[in-house]
Structure formats: C-alpha cells, structure tokens
C-alpha cells in the first residue's frame, strides 16, 4: 500500500515542481498567474496528503483563491493604467522597439537576458543542494505532538491545531491578525480607491448567480468557523470563505460598493485584533498571564475571539482586494 502512496507522492511533487517551473519561466503574466493558481491547488492536495486538512483548506481558500484573485485584479489594473497612459497623453514615450506593444509593456516580461543565467542557476543549485543534505541528515523524530496531546484537556477545544493557534501560541496568532491589518493600513496609506481603476464585470449573469452563491457561502463560512473547535476549520479558513464572497460582491457591483462608510469599516477591521487584545489584557489582569484563559472560560473565549477574527479577516481581505482607501475614511 505504501508503495502506491510513494508513487502518488512522486507524481504529485513532479506536478507541483513542473507547474512552478512553468509559472516562473512564462513571459506572459496572465499565463504565469493562471499557472500560479494551479500551483496553489496542487499544493492544497499535497497538504491533504500530509494529513493537514486545515492547512489544505486554508491553502485552497487563501493561497490559491484570494491570492489568485488579487493577482488577476492587479493585472487588470496594470492593463487599464497602461491603456489610460497610452491614450490619455499626447507625448507618450515611444513604445520600446524590442518589446511588444507598449500598451502591454507592463504585462509582458521579456525573457531574461542570457548573461545572468549561469550565476543564478549555480547559486540556486548550491542553496538547494545544501538544504537537501541538511534535511536528509535530520532524525525522523515526531515533533511536539505528544506535548500538545498531554495539554489538550485543558485547552478548551478538541481540535489540536485550533488549541495551538488560539491557546498555546495565541501570541503568534494575534500578531498574524495584526500583520493582515498592517498590510491593509499600508495599502490604504498609498491612496484612495478612485486612484485605482476597477472596471465592472458586464452582464446580468454574475449578479444573478451571486444571489444564489453568497447566502450559501455565508452558511458554509459560519459552519467552518463552528467546526473549527472539534474538526478541521477555524477563523482563518472561515474568514477566507466570507472574504471570497465579499470579493465576488465587489466584482459584481463595483459602482455601489457595499463598502460601509469610514468608521464602521475601521471598527470592523480592527474588531478581531481589539477583542483578542482585550481578552489578553484581561487574562494578564486576572493572573493567567498575557493571552491566558482560565480553564473553564477557555472555550467561550476562544469562540468569541474566532468570531471577531473571522469578521475582521473577511473585511480586510475584501478591502485588500479593493486596495484603496474608501472615501468615507477621509471624511
């Protein structure tokens, strides 16, 4: 039986590496992005193989889904910026003769010149081989699983990954939420969203299907959030699903952006981090140490934090997709 698995692994790994190589080697950006999304999905398959369903869910939702959407919308924006610059201004810079049509200069990356091929290859090979040798010398020992298992009863949840994420290493997860928030603040500090053109998707079909899809997405999201405490799932995966639903809404009706005015949106995106911090400070005050919970209160607090985290992750991902400050924020 394990022989079949080894063959499956080898085929899967070959597929992943092949797709990744094609993605990096492609001159057309659109092709590279599509290949990258495929790469993300294959990765999700690999994580399932490595018995990490949570991570597979996250990889598919965030790694392939959200990142893919972000990349595609970036390409769209690059194309419209170049188009606007090309037509909008009389003295446009002459399209460089070697490259393809100037309009798409931003969307094509001419194959890299020959001379930097050899040093880059050698450097990468050296790094790769050193890494592989180091990894092959490592003992095949189990990691911290027994330690986590020993403390599961006190962690307030049954699923080990959620226990690690929201109880044992809650500080890391808090900072992770903070990083998502900082990325958004950074994107917002760059400019207003009207600076970044976003053409609406034509036709009635997308809004129509959305009326069906969005409610189902919300129910699935809440289910995944709820299941997180005893089965694969949790705040981040649920947040990604709801975020995807939000992005679909943004694509379908860009004119009347469902973006709330400044203050509620700001409170929404900081809800997750703020609540997490409040619980943490309460824990510090009550003597359980920063971000510590009393055993009895662990479960309800974790659920509370997860709900707030899901809400703010979903909102932040949609806002990152729009990538511009809402007008309400400047009022």
């Amino acid at each position, binding site marked *: 039986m394990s022989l079949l698995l080894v063959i499956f692994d080898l085929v899967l790994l070959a597929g992943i590496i092949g797709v990744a190589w094609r993605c990096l080697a492609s001159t057309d950006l659109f092709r590279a992005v599509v290949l990258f999304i495929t790469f993300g999905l294959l990765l999700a398959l690999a994580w399932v193989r490595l018995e990490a369903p949570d991570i597979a869910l996250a990889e598919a939702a965030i790694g392939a889904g959200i990142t893919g959407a972000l990349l595609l919308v970036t390409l769209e924006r690059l194309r419209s910026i170049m188009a606007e610059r090309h037509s909008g201004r009389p003295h446009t810079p002459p399209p460089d003769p070697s490259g393809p049509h100037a309009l798409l200069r931003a969307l094509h990356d001419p194959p890299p010149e020959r001379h930097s091929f050899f040093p880059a290859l050698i450097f990468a090979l050296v790094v790769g081989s050193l890494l592989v*040798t*180091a990894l092959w010398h490592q003992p095949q020992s189990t990691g*911290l699983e027994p330690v986590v298992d020993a403390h599961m009863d006190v962690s307030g949840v049954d699923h080990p990954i959620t226990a690690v994420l929201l109880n044992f290493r809650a500080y890391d997860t*808090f900072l992770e939420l903070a990083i998502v928030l900082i990325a958004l*603040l950074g994107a917002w*500090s760059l400019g207003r969203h009207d600076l970044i053109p976003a053409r609406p998707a034509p036709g009635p079909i997308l809004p129509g299907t959305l009326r069906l899809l969005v409610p189902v997405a919300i129910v699935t999201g809440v289910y995944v959030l709820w299941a997180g405490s005893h089965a694969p799932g949790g705040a981040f995966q649920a947040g990604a699903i709801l975020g995807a639903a939000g992005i679909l809404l943004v694509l379908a009706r860009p004119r009347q952006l469902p973006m709330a005015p400044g203050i509620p949106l700001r409170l929404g995106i900081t809800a997750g981090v*703020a609540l997490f911090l409040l619980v943490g400070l309460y*824990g*510090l005050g009550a003597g359980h140490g*920063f971000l510590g919970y009393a055993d009895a209160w662990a479960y309800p607090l974790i659920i509370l934090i997860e709900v707030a985290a899901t809400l703010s992750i979903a909102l932040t991902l949609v806002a990152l997709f729009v990538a511009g400050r809402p007008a309400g924020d400047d009022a």
Partner: protein
Amino acid sequence: MIEAPETWLPTAIAGLVGLSLAVAVVATAWPRQAHRIGLFGALAVFAWVLGLSALFVAAGPEAEAAATRVALGGWEAPLGLMLHLDGLSMTLLVLTAIVALATSLYSLGYIHDRIERRQFWPLWLWLWAGLNMLFLSGDAFNLYITLEVVSLSAVALVAFTGTAAAVSGAVRYLLINILGSLSFLMGVVLLFGEHGVLDLVLLEARSEAGPTERMAAVLMTAGLMLKAALFPLHVWLAPAHGSAPAPVSAVLSGLVVTGSFYLLLRLWMGVFAPLATPAFGILIGLLGVAALIWGSAQALRAGRLKSIVAYSTVAQFGYLLVAFPLMLVDPDAWRVVVFFAVVHALAKASVFLAAGTLQHAAGHDRLAELGGVLRARPRTVFALGLAGVSLMGLPFTGGFIAKYLLLEAGLGTILAGSVIGVLWVVAIAGGGLLAAAYVLRMVAPAFHRGPERAGEAVSPWMDWVPLGLATVAALAGFAGTLTLHTLTLTPGAP
C-alpha cells in the same frame, strides 16, 4: 519597593507588550484622534519602559541566573511562547523608547495634514510595538512574526510620501524584506526539524555544530544581513531611507536596522555559538572594512542630504561588522559593540531628524542649494553638527566612549598576538576620519558667506527635537558605565 521587585517584573514585561499593542490598536480603530492617541501612547510607553528598566536594574539578577522569562498564557517553553528579558534586550528597549519618543514628538510637527496624520500614526505605533516585541521575544518563530510586523509597517512608512522615488524604494525594500524573512524562516524550520523545539534557550542547550545548524546559520544570517543592510546586501538602504519621510528614516536607520543586528548578535552568542570560528570572524571583519570604505565613499559622493546620511548608516554598520572578529578573541567585547550600536542609533536618528527639518524648510534636500537654509537655521545645524561629532567619535559624545572601547578591544587583540587586529584598529580609527569628512560636507555650507533664506515655517517640534536628541546622544557618553553594567546582566553571554 512594595515587595521584592522580582514579583513585579514578569507582569511589567507582559504589560509593556500589552500597552504598546493597545496603543497601536486604539490608534488604528480611531484614526481621527490617531495623533493625540499617538502622543499620549508614546509618553505612556516611554514611562513604562523607564519603570521596567528601574525594576530590572533593582531586581538585578546575577548574570548567571536565568534572565527574566515570562510564559505567555501560562504555557511553559516547549509548548507555549516565552518572553525573554535580559541586559541586552533591556538596553535596546530603553534606546528604542528614547528614539521613538523623540520621533513621535517630531512627527507631530512634520505630519500636520489632516488625512495623512490618520494614515501615519497607526503605522508608526505598530512599528514601535513591533520593535518592543522583537526585543522581548524568546521564541524563534515568534521572532519571524515580529520581524514581519516591523518590516511591513516600515515599508508602508517608507512609501508614505507617495512620490515615485518613495514607492520604488519601498517596493525594493519590501521584496528584500520578504526574501530576508523567508530565508530566516527556513533557518527556523531547519532548527525545528532537527531539535523539535522553538524556544531560543532550549535550542541553545541542544545545538551543536551539525550540518543543520550550519545551514540554518547561513540562512538566518543571510536573511538578517539583508534586513540590516549589512555591507554586501545593502543595496536597498539608500533609496529607501533617502526618500522616506524624515521621522521614518530616522527610525529605520536608528532602530529597525539595529533590531536586525541585535538578532544577529543574539543568535551568534546563543544558538550558533559553537559555529563561530575565527575564519568566519575574519570574513565578517573584512566585510565590515569594505562597508566602511564603500559607505563613506558613497556618502562623500551623494548629492542629497538624506542620501549622505543613509550611506553613512551603511558605513557605520561596517563598524559593527568589524567588531565581530574582536568578539571572537575577547569575548567581553560584545558589550562594547552593543554600546556602539546604541550610540550610533541615537546620533543617526538626530541627524536624520535635523536633515528632515532642513528639507521641510527648503522644499528639497539637494545639498548644493541648501546653503541659504543652513545659514538661516543655526539650531538645526548645531544639532546636525553635534550628532555628527558623535558619529565621528570625538569627545564629549557617546561616540567617543564607544570608539575608545572599540579601540581598546582592537588593541587588546593585537596585544594578544593576532596580526589581523592591526587592520581592525586602522579601520576603526580611519572610520572616524571618513565620518568627519562627510559630516563636514553637510555642515560646512552653513559657514559660507551668503544670503540667508529661512524657507518655509517649521513647527517648534521640528526645531527643538533634533537638538534635544543630539544632546541625549552626546550625554550617552556619561551613561557608558551604567549601560555596560546593564549589559553584563545577560546570562549565556560569553
């Protein structure tokens, strides 16, 4: 004290993390009042850090006793995360508090546009919180996460002005930061794969000179050198620091780059201690010498005020690299290196702030046309000069004491018979001269005879804060003994 200071210390440490995070979160949630929250928050964190340092010195754990370690959420080392406070991190926390408070006060004057204020303050407070957490973190993966917090907010602040130069500098800085973080993370994963633990103290206990440690050392050092812009990997520093708003470049050159250096020091004294061979030390030393020469040469050639200061950061960090081989011969020299980094951070921050005031007044910072403004603002030029003197390592400044200690360590190695020590001493001594050259280049136009042009009005914060910080940099000299004593309270240090 009410009771023994030891009992208050853990809560004070976790409280510092909680407070700086709280200030950042409230500022993000309430952008309209972000600048007021920022000011009070800055003062509160500054006071808290001073209180913490008083507690730490009062508690005074002997250097051998384990540093104060706080288990977050009550979960002990292999499972949970530990905050780690010892002499080294305490000194750098106090440094961060001083420079950050000065920068916050400066920013009150520098960023006065209603909308920009709302964007600037939350990012800045997250950066400060990130730095505080970086110095307190005792877990390898947590270091990666705090480095990410610091890098992302730093990049966002670099791109803040929104000009083409700022955004292109920011993109380059971000890509290099992500590459550095991934390389650091791969090192952490290798260590985790080998030892199955993430806590630095436990890792240090288990690490020996095996292939995994060697590869992890290479990866993590390369990642941190990318972030600290140490010589061979410094390409991003000048455009990023040059085009960022003044308070941001002050913090970048002063604290963020020093933070990465702190991590290098912490790793090479702890987890990778068995790997530190003399040959490696000499290699790092040679890189340092190259950094000194290249950085100073660029600083002498650069046309813009902020570029000169940015290149001088690359040069001055050459000093820290040159000091690495000294540490291998005389294990006690690491305290001197940290003291030099502290003094450099103070001086560099005040030089950047002064340069920012001049740029704000003149509307540009092309050195050739700054004569008028330089002549019209003696206070800022004096701050620039005083901090410049500290960079040169001349008397009555912290720089002088730091350079004295570095020279003492260098000569000590020569007396102990290492011939290459002569190169280190010449580099340390010569570096000061080169610094004198480019500081003179910035200050000399003020003494040219010519018309005075006051330029735009500048808020009092921007006028007095650089001078205040420059004086603190000068007085740091007298705090030499206290700092070096605090640094001795670092267990596990050679």
